[in-house]
């Protein structure tokens, strides 16, 4: 690589990283769908999909083929530009959030960190911003469908998402106070001192913030028990009623990609990210460059997988909120609790000096 300038090396490696992360994320989205169906099935005392391939592992391929081959219906009265734009915004925003997430330890190849696509000083604000922009996908899909019920479903969902964005943002302030930075690498590093004891949820005492973050994230991603706007029995399946085949698949993928993003952010902020559970106890064990690069990624994947399983478990267990219960929960319970958490955290940190 000696005949390329530094900038060209950086550019090539970045493009490679983006391509690899995108492909892996899309594969994870497809297999999250399968994971959900299997886990839901097991919790309901039945097998999930188990016929296609061993343990149903080829099911996402077959589902993808089915969705591609379905007829792409576009009703005459829809507003075409917005109709086509809405699923693109939803899926695009869901996938962009993965670009600031560090999913491994700092490993440099030709001076470029290969386990993070973009190391931005305001990484946490980028994730919050992308979540805010994702609201447009929902709002525009209902509007452009030119259908009263879709419009009502999308207005409900938009109101739900923007209400819970507040609690989401505020619950992360405690973590930022402890780490003194918005850079996701710095936040992960502030939790790496003593393994599990220095994670933000245990050593940083941010369990209230974690609880608020989980509730707000479930509401943001429109997942059970907050999935009123898109449940099949409510308002004729809500804002993605008029969409079929590829565009519906994009909404569907956007929901699962948002789940994965929430899992990634929760592990980074509350569970120590890619650091191991045992801290520095086993540092001398298998201390080669290859294992130092691979093991943190494995820890990260295990933690995100735990969050996905938690999502699916909650979906299988809890009944749905009614819309007014949902809104009053967000505004009257989570928001004051998040503000109280900020006050208590900053008080304790000021006392400690």
């Amino acid at each position, binding site marked *: 690589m000696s005949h390329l300038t530094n900038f060209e090396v950086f550019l090539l490696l970045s493009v490679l990283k983006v391509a690899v992360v995108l492909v892996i994320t899309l594969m994870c989205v497809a297999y999250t769908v399968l994971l959900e169906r299997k886990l839901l099935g097991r919790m309901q005392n039945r097998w999930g999909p188990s016929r296609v391939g061993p343990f149903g592992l080829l099911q996402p391929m077959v589902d993808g083929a089915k969705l591609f081959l379905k007829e792409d219906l576009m009703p005459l009265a829809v507003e075409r530009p917005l109709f086509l734009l809405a699923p693109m915004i939803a899926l695009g925003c869901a996938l962009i959030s993965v670009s600031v997430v560090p999913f491994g330890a700092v490993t440099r190849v030709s001076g470029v960190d290969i386990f993070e696509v973009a190391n931005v000083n305001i990484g946490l604000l980028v994730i919050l911003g992308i979540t*805010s*922009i994702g609201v447009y996908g929902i709002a525009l899909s209902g509007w452009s469908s030119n259908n009263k019920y879709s419009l009502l479903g999308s*207005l409900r969902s938009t109101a739900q998402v923007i209400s819970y*964005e507040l609690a989401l*943002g505020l619950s992360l302030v405690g973590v930022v106070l402890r780490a003194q930075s918005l850079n996701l690498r710095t936040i992960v590093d502030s939790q790496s001192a003593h393994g599990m004891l220095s994670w933000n949820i245990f050593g940083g005492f941010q369990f209230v913030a974690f609880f608020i973050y989980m509730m707000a994230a479930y509401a943001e991603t429109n997942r059970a028990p907050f999935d009123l706007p898109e449940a099949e029995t409510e308002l004729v399946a809500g804002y993605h009623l008029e969409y079929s085949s590829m565009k519906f698949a994009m909404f569907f993928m956007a929901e699962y990609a948002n789940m994965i993003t929430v899992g990634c952010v929760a592990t980074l902020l509350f569970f120590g990210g890619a650091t191991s559970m045992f801290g520095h106890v086993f540092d001398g064990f298998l201390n080669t460059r290859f294992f130092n690069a691979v093991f943190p990624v494995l820890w990260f994947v295990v933690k995100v997988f735990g969050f996905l399983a938690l999502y699916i478990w909650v979906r299988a267990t809890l009944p749905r909120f009614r819309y007014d219960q949902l809104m009053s929960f967000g505004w009257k319970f989570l928001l004051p609790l998040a503000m109280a958490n900020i006050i208590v955290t900053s008080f304790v940190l000021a006392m400690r000096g």
Partner: protein
Amino acid sequence: MQLALFIIFGGLALAGALNLLFQRHPINSALSLVVVMMSLAVLYWSLGAEFLAAAQVIVYSGAIMVLFVFVIMLLNAGEEEKTHGSRAAYGAGIPGAAAIFCLLSFVFLSERDALGKVSVGGFLGNAVDNIAEVSATLFTKLLLPFEVTSILILVAILGAVVLARKEQ
């Protein structure tokens, strides 16, 4: 490279603003304004204001404009019509806007050398990054305006709730 970034996103902002002017339905104007705001966020980032870029995306285009889009969808007012008032406004509005633009650009272009050049990326006074610098000033020297704006927002929330309530 900063010039390329400026031309692309400045052009996008300008196209969005012109689209706002020429569209008939208010929802298309609102979405054009979202495009303008996102490209302005990129321009702020290139001028070194990272926190403002994030605030522009989160607050302005992610909350305020969502509120606008929400109200437009709720009220469902429809496209604009050509009325007598609108034709008179064309006669006064376009020359007025053009006059203001000519005045401003004359002032800026005549002082072009005194204004100098800006570089990509921020300046750091005595802080580690842009956010630390903004917050150092905001929470020490400008604490009173900061608290006053929080009271302002509280008053605005109360006002909006009272004004938009149904008559009982």
